[in-house]
């Protein structure tokens, strides 16, 4: 297995500027550097509001950092997410960089099964194989079979979250970002998610996670990373 880090964050800074509120500047972090190697699960630590999710979203390309670079090893080449063109970022997300958020973005009329299969279909996997894997995963996550053909809009928070998890773990992404994937799950489902994370780490995935649940954190973290150490001066 390669020992190159899969994520290299260098000198990253993020300040939000709210132009419609007297251009108020909200500095979040600065001079932040972080490397994550295959098999590592780095858990972001720090109290609420310290910028854990902002860092995660900056790495995913969802937020635009003010300074610095985020390089992700994609097809053997480092792609700087902060500089790459939109189609390049989308390609990195499609094939290399998975993201599990707390919330599911529901698309009207699309069934749960379709939603979970989508990442495989986008990568050219046959519909039969995608469906078989989606069913295996949804069963493992104990989502009732009667729900599979329904759009998840009306599901409970915990059910939607399990759909989200199934959608993200159906592919073996080399790099995964986990933003509180177990937030609204019961103990049994949390244990299943822990197993999925451990299996992915065993395959050599590199992960960055936010977990408020200490049991989950202790079960998966290979090290903690304190975001507050990089707090930007206001």
């Amino acid at each position: 297995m390669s020992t190159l880090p899969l994520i290299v964050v260098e000198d990253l800074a993020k300040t939000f500027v709210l132009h419609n509120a007297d251009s108020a500047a909200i500095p979040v972090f600065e001079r932040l550097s972080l490397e994550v190697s295959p098999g590592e699960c780095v858990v972001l630590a720090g109290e609420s509001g310290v910028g854990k999710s902002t860092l995660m979203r900056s790495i995913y390309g969802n937020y635009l950092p003010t300074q610095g670079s985020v390089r992700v090893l994609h097809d053997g080449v480092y792609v700087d997410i902060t500089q790459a063109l939109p189609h390049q970022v989308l390609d990195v997300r499609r094939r290399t960089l998975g993201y599990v958020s707390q919330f599911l973005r529901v698309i009207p009329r699309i069934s749960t099964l379709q939603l979970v299969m989508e990442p495989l279909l986008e990568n050219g996997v046959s519909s039969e194989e995608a469906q078989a894997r989606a069913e295996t995963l949804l069963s493992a996550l104990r989502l009732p079979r009667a729900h599979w053909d329904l759009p998840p809009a009306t599901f409970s928070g915990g059910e939607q979250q399990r759909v989200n998890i199934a959608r993200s773990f159906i592919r073996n992404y080399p790099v995964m970002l986990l933003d509180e994937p177990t937030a609204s799950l019961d103990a049994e489902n949390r244990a299943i998610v822990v197993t999925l994370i451990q299996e992915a780490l065993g395959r050599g995935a590199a992960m960055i996670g936010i977990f408020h649940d200490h049991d989950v954190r202790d079960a998966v973290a290979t090290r903690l990373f304190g975001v507050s150490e990089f707090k930007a001066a206001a």
Partner: protein
Amino acid sequence: MDAAVLTKPHPTSGMTQAAPLLRVSNLTKSYGHVVGCRDVSFELRPGEVLGIVGESGSGKTTLLNAISGKLPPSAGKVEFDTSRFGLTDIYGLNEPDRRRMQREEWGFVHQNPRDGLRMRVSGGANVAEPLMNLGDRHYGRMRAATIEWLERVELDTRRIDDKPRNFSGGMQQRIQVARNLIHGPRLVFMDEPTGGLDVSVQARLLDLLRELVRDLGLAVIIVTHDMAVARLMADRLLVMKSGFVVETGLTDQVLDDPQHPYTQLLVSSVLQI
């Protein structure tokens, strides 16, 4: 894997750069002293969906019309990778060649189905017409293709001979979509395609469009003032204000972390339900 990649000067150079399907350079359209759009440049790749957003009067439709060959620009160029001539300035083509290229390789879905359909002929004839325009004279084959497309846009094929006015607004819009996709275009322009529809009908049409775009690998330029439509459909966005492009980028980045004051205002003005 080679550690040398770490020291490459251009970390993204390993990614293949496909030729653009469309290249717009310094496009400007003014009406006398009034600026429709000014100095707009971008490239579109095969299979890419570009959203143009901004409020009414920001120049979205002027830009779309100038790009799609309907409105000669005051300055600048629109180049398209035509199958006959390669990458060509579309306004440099003579009129018959340009019209042929538009018929063969493009589609245009209007906001109002009445602008995109012929209201005096049947729904089926509307769908089949592009094939006929491209020289198909085999009635059975055209009818089969029409039925297939009516099914793809979820219309009752028994109504193939009904006139467009006998269909609801949402159905008319689906006829227009079928009419604009049946000939296998490589680039489709859409001007507020869900604009005049009820929300439930809108959701269904969006869903259908999203599926078709993915299955056919279409490149699309879609104009919308609806941020939810932009998020669902577009890979990347151009935000327009007063004829200028004020911000561009990956759709979710522009909507979740807008940089320009106008985009921030636009995004924060969306009501949550």
